[in-house]
């Protein structure tokens, strides 16, 4: 109940912030504009709407996850709002979990609205609906949850600016980490290959969650691949949250 109370209030705080509303409005506008762009192409309308739509919702989702996530804990400490909460009979892990769940809920609503628009537009253009879009959006949402967990981990011990840089870096590396592994196998010497492999194991492999291109081009999806990616995502998030709790548990609020 305490986690729920904190989560709900984190959500309330976030959705009442006008910045979030304006970002969402801008994202919806961009997605809608993809329909105009699609009308310029011949025979590719559906693909363009889906491709641009998924990319926009993913991009803006990541943007929101990073910029709300980095402030989630550090802003509470900086503004000393955390004092009133931690001085109450609340375990620190409850506070952190509540904050995380609140932000995930916020993302679910904002990204949900974007994805609904994408699905609606694709349906209007194609004349039939593509269930694969939901699978793609769902997996992408797991990637967002990982990014949020990375942001919250940095946020427990670092400043918002540094957290933003680190999280953004990890996001970019994570998106490319599939290629990283491939490069290692193709070119690197044995020592470097081992190093890259270790790095690959530590850093999140966000490329696993991108099935958008297959969906857009109507290629077959591998159910096993999706299930493995989902499992990987859940485990990765749990590990990040445990780390964040470990740091937060010992932290002094100066």
């Amino acid at each position, binding site marked *: 109940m305490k986690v729920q109370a904190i989560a709900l209030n984190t959500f309330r705080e976030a959705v009442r912030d006008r910045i979030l509303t304006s970002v969402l409005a801008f994202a919806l506008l961009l997605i809608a504009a993809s329909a105009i762009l699609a009308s310029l192409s011949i025979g590719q309308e559906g693909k363009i709407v889906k491709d641009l739509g998924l990319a926009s919702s993913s991009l803006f989702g990541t943007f929101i996850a990073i910029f709300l996530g980095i402030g989630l804990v550090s802003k509470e400490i900086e503004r*000393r709002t955390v004092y009133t*909460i931690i001085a109450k*009979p609340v375990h620190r892990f409850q506070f952190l979990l509540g904050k995380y769940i609140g932000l995930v809920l916020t993302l679910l609503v904002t990204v949900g609205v974007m994805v609904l628009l994408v699905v609606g537009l694709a349906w209007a253009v194609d004349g039939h609906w593509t269930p694969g879009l939901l699978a793609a959006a769902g997996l992408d949402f797991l990637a967002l949850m990982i990014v949020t967990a990375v942001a919250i981990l940095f946020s427990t011990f670092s400043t918002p600016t540094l957290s933003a840089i680190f999280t953004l870096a990890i996001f970019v590396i994570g998106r490319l980490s599939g290629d990283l592994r491939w490069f290692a196998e193709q070119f690197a010497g044995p020592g470097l290959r081992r190093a890259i492999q270790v790095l690959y194991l530590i850093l999140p492999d966000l490329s696993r969650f991108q099935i958008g291109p297959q969906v857009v081009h109507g290629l077959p999806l591998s159910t096993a691949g999706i299930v493995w990616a989902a499992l990987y995502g859940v485990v990765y998030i749990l590990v990040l949250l445990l780390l964040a709790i470990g740091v937060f548990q010992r932290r002094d609020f100066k």
Partner: protein
Amino acid sequence: MDPVIEIEGLCKDFRVGFWRRRTRVLHDLNLTVHRGEIFGYLGPNGAGKTTTLKLLTGLILPTAGSARLLGRDVTLVATKQQIGFLPETPYFYDYLTGREFLDLCGQLFGLPTPVRRDRIARLLALISLEQAADRQLRKYSKGMLQRLGLAQALINDPSLVILDEPMSGLDPLGRKAMRDIILQLKAEGRTIFFSSHILPDVEVLCDRVGILVGGRLRGVGRLDEILTAQTESVELILERVSPDLAVLLQDLAQGPLLSRPDGVLVRLPDQERADQALRAAVEAGARVVGVAPQRLTLEDHFLREVQGHTP
């Protein structure tokens, strides 16, 4: 008497600067506060008052020593069930309304909905914020936030209330209201531990005070013991002082006399000399306009403690 706060050998180090050097900000603090007391925790800026309060509320962890509140260790989360805490210059969530914030606080204490609703209504009345209860906190003034801070500290009907600078940010009316509420809390049998800079308020409210300087507790005592034990000096104001009398008075006062529009001011270092001076003045035909024993105020005591120990 029943101890509510028991602090034993409490120390706190912070790491500061680029090299993360250890600096001790609280040295071997020992202090006991009893049930039903109003205890004033005084000290100049940076003395370690807030650090102590943060240790008591689990916001920071002690380097050494221990503290118990209501018989339970402060590091246990369950201890906080009976504690109310108002942080210094409280800052809450901008986008929540006052009522939502109090409700969140109630939920964090695990209070059921009907209890929360009743308490919130009562507390909003206590701090006179009923009108603003459904406004978002970013539209609150500093004084309103301070009052809301007090309300959230009382939401769990605590037996110990810890207040960090409760008077800061309040106008004279607000300070009066805060004083009345603190006295009312005491009348309800609660223990109040608060830090403050505003000494006249402390003088009116506190049963006992502790003075912290440079992270060390320099003195603890009952206000009446600290303040009325010594009469510092006696001031006499006399009219029609003859030159002979003036010489005698200067001798007793061990210093020059001051001429004032209403007569001559003589400051005598103790009661005995004051008696002698009075007798001599009456015998010499002078008129006594005023006699004022000068007692030590809390402010004098405070300044003496601070200046005596500043490194």
